[in-house]
């Protein structure tokens, strides 16, 4: 017979091995993306160097980093404008979508009447909406906010309607057995049910709102990331162009992660997988 400590020693060894494997996995998840980015930057620098790409066609990564540092204040000033437009548009578009989804769920006839209109507006591409809104709203921040809002609106509306409506039918029957009022059904059941759907739409909207603001700035604007992109392109200042793109992307990514963080704080139950 084996001695009494053997099984415990076996368990301890297995646990240690498991922890070591977990640790290795954790490091891999941290290091591999970094290695990928480093490889990308290195091959970019290498190609620009070897192929003798002229600076007005594409900059080397070192030139981009140098511009990022040298023109940091100017880039941030322009980002502040774009960020404000994107955030205002995000808030406006999503609030409107949530409000209209609430109306649609309570008044089926409203949904049937107005949903086709919403779909129609959504089929107009952003680059076509932009000049229309600039003509309507002038040259200030308003048309950019409007474009960012419009671009957020549709995915949130569709997801929110789905989230409010796709309630477990047995939970609906339960509410009826409990004689719950429509108001109670909305706040106790539908709103919570819609939250995972809402957040998956908000995560999409976080990046598209920034795109909307930038596209808006392409038409008749002197400040903002979009205006800077246009100016840098016309001046063949590729280092500034790339630096501007990097700043815009970083902001989008930060916005996305902020929404993800909020989601993790709000949706703490195991939610169904939402496409």
């Amino acid at each position, binding site marked *: 017979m084996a001695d009494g400590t053997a099984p415990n020693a076996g368990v301890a060894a297995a646990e240690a091995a498991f922890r070591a494997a977990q640790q290795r996995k954790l490091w891999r998840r941290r290091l591999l993306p970094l290695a990928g980015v480093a490889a990308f930057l290195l091959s970019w620098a290498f190609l620009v160097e070897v192929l003798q790409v002229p600076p007005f066609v594409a900059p080397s990564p070192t030139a981009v980093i140098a511009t990022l540092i040298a023109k940091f204040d100017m880039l941030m000033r322009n980002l502040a404008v774009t960020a404000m437009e994107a955030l205002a548009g995000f808030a406006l578009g999503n609030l409107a979508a949530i409000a209209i989804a609430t109306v649609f769920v309570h008044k089926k006839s409203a949904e049937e009447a107005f949903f086709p209109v919403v779909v129609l507006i959504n089929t107009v591409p952003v680059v076509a909406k932009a000049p229309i809104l600039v003509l309507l709203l002038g040259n200030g921040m308003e048309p950019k906010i409007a474009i960012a809002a419009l671009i957020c609106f549709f995915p949130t509306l569709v997801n929110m309607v789905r989230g409010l409506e796709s309630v477990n039918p*047995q939970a609906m029957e339960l509410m009826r057995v409990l004689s719950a009022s429509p108001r*109670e059904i909305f706040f*106790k059941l539908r709103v919570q049910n819609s939250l995972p759907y809402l957040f998956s739409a908000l995560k999409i909207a976080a990046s598209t709102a920034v795109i909307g603001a930038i596209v808006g700035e392409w038409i008749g604007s002197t400040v903002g990331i979009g205006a800077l992109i246009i100016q840098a392109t016309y001046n063949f200042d590729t280092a500034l162009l790339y630096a501007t793109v990097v700043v815009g992307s970083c902001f989008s990514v930060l916005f996305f992660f902020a929404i993800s963080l909020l989601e993790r704080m709000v949706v703490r139950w195991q939610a169904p997988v939402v496409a």
Partner: protein
Amino acid sequence: MNAQTIAPAVACRALSVRFVTERRTVTALENVSFDIPKGAFLSLLGPSGCGKSTLLRVVADLVNASEGACDVLGGTPEQARRERKLGFVFQDAALLPWRTAIQNVELPLEVGGGIKRGSSPTPRELLRLVGLEGWENSFPHELSGGMRQRVSIARALLGSPQILLMDEPFGALDEITRDRLNEELLRIWQETKTTILFVTHSIYEAAFLGQKVLVLAANPGRVREMVDIDLPATRDLAIRDSAEFVRIAAHLRALLGSC
């Protein structure tokens, strides 16, 4: 019957339910009549499509009768529902995933009005009754299927309903869990003295739990026979090996076979 007969908890008279769809009209129940005395445990047994779930939903005022009537506690199903005299346990527990176990049990306090906060038994006491002491703050996804169904039974018992309607509550559970919950349900029934209508498609479950078994036939759903189960009120699982139980089960199976 004499004058002292207590009014039945549920009395159905020539009840028919039809569902009209574009393709065809389904007769879920046809000419169903039966009585259930107060405090009784009735099992509803039948093949799928025999309308046993529909019958439960008529009593709960979730489905309207097409013809005939169903008296619940001397009034209409709607009155019984509005006065919060009914508890319903669904097949998939129907817990709200964003609420903890105790918050799920508290839901009936927050909607519909009618149940006073602080009335006895409290949500905490009910969770203890169903054997979930210490799990109050767990979310549904942290509980097993059997535990989720216990929470849903506790929720249905809040406000001390006079009738508990159970729609195949243990249908999705494994046999060992189901056996244990069957025994506990009998204990809860005896402690709470609630009238229970229990839908199942298991012959053994129907016979083990019920004082009476209403056997239904399918297409259209109709009463095959009301069978009295002559077993002692206090039962344990071993009773299923007794000659009497085997005889009853054989009788029920014969009834189902000739549907």
